């Protein structure tokens, strides 16, 4: 709850974003030793006034949306897929990659009049991308390596996160088109920002200064 006596609670996306955020907090001067020796703990203190909660990306949004965490660090990819009601106050600059439309090298995706099939882990992102183009597509949700779908001829193309493009290249695929750039974002619960304005604004300011 937004209890004024409780520590400011920040939900971090486990993994790389967590490490980068901890690095940022340390640069600002917070003691993050508890996070380094976390063991299996999921809620950890950072200095006296903050605690971090480690969660999966989509859950970061859920916890922040409900106000049980005041702030969160989550990739733009998850924000685009999940949407939700919160303030997105800063682009943290790390975790940079992009959403891209990709398929078999040398093929022309837009050729022909048949309805294209898109394989993706991000059905909402894919749907809104093609909606803007006024294009009807069939979307197939895939959980694992999406690259398989065009190779096995299940899909004409994929919409997925591309970092270096190595996986695509090694499997004979290429990027047709960029969909959207991605990076880590700092999000804030809409009520927390108002009720704990001073604490949160100070933290945002020091984060912005240390990016």
């Amino acid at each position: 709850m937004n209890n004024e006596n409780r520590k400011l609670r920040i939900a971090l996306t486990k993994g790389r974003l967590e490490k980068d955020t901890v690095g940022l907090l340390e640069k600002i001067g917070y003691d993050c030793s508890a996070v380094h020796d976390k063991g299996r703990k999921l809620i950890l203190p950072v200095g006296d006034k903050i605690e971090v909660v480690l969660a999966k990306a989509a859950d970061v949004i859920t916890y922040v949306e409900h106000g049980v965490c005041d702030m969160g660090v989550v990739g733009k990819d998850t924000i685009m897929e999940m949407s939700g009601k919160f303030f997105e106050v800063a682009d943290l600059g790390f975790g940079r990659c992009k959403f891209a439309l990709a398929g078999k090298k040398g093929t022309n995706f837009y050729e022909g009049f048949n309805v294209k099939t898109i394989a993706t882990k991000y059905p909402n992102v894919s749907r809104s991308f093609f909606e803007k183009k006024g294009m009807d597509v069939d979307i197939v949700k895939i959980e694992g390596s999406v690259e398989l779908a065009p190779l096995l001829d299940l899909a004409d193309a994929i919409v997925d996160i591309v970092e270096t493009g190595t996986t695509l290249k090694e499997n004979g695929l290429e990027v047709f088109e960029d969909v959207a750039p991605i990076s880590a974002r700092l999000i804030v619960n809409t009520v927390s920002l108002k009720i704990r304005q001073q604490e949160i604004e100070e933290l945002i300011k020091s984060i912005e200064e240390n990016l």
Partner: protein
Amino acid sequence: MKRFDLITPEGTKDLLFEDCVVRNGVEKKISDIFKSKGYCEIKTPGIEFFDVFNLRSRYFPQESMYKLVDNKGRLLVVRPDSTMPIARVAATRLREAKLPLRMFYNQNVYRSKSAMRGRSDEIKQMGIELIGSDSKRADLEVITTAIEVLSSCDNDKFRLELGNIGLFRKLVEKLPVTEETREEIRSLIEVKNYPALNDLLDSIGDTEVTNSLKQLPRLFGGVEVFDKAAELMNDSEIDQILAELKALYTSLLSLGYDGKITVDLGIVNKMHYYTGVVIKGYLEGYGDAVLSGGRYNHLLAEFGYDVPATGFAINVDAVSTVLKRKETVKVPVADVIVFAEDGYVIDGLKLVSKLGTEGKIALNSVFDTLEETKNYAREYGIKKVICVSDKTTEITVEG
């Protein structure tokens, strides 16, 4: 075929006992406040024609409404909001009534939300509408009522926030951009997405207007907001809106809710609906606004009755959730259970009624024996059994 006979639809829930006690308490408290200020209750149908909610100033995306088709093939919706039906009533049956009209409502609204997000589709809302006055006195009346309602829910930990949608509207009007881009700017201000807003405005140009729009979502807090806002662009209309908002804010401060009344110049939701002062209310322990409202001077004109109006709605379920977490509420235990021997059942029921008129909670025992009645009393913590026969005896039940 899969059967769904043991569960409720997504986004709905059953409210049991304590939940009802808490919610009824909230409803009574709020409706007492409304009634004491001369607001009269109005109930509108649970289903309405889709067209009522499909006006220019609509803010309900069609995918968020539950729809039905009537027996003539016309599209209906399950009421997603109470203000539009009330505007419809004001513009039709109340058209000849002397203005201003003061109305309040206490009814469910239904909005289809994405599943599994932990929010309800069925929400109990209460609210007031003050129709037919554009006076600042009307704004003050509605806002002080909102403050009174919030403080009656949680005197220590509420916030009421003021804004004026006119600021954004005046600024964005000056930009040479399409309606779509304006909407994009608005939505970025609404979610306080500072980086994306800056990028978008930079691409439009480095002018006084774009710089002011960049500042807008950051302008929230106490009275200092007005000093910072003075750095916004110089424009007589904008200055006037700010001056009026500051005057409103200052007069509200004299109510004595120190630090609980704040300002956010970046409130830009429902832009086609609100026309001036907007308010939002928060309670600690709920992650979203519990109260929202403001001035909507163009809505009634869409029903063919061009009069100004203002009002607010409060989410009763959200308030109940917050209160239930703070205090343990118990359903009152029956004072007594009445057991009647064979042949005295009617006498027993008469006694139950008599005790009821005396303000007691009296249960009628449907068991055949006194022993079973006592066991039942023990299970439910009822302290007293009255046994009705040729002579009536009282038995105290030990825990």
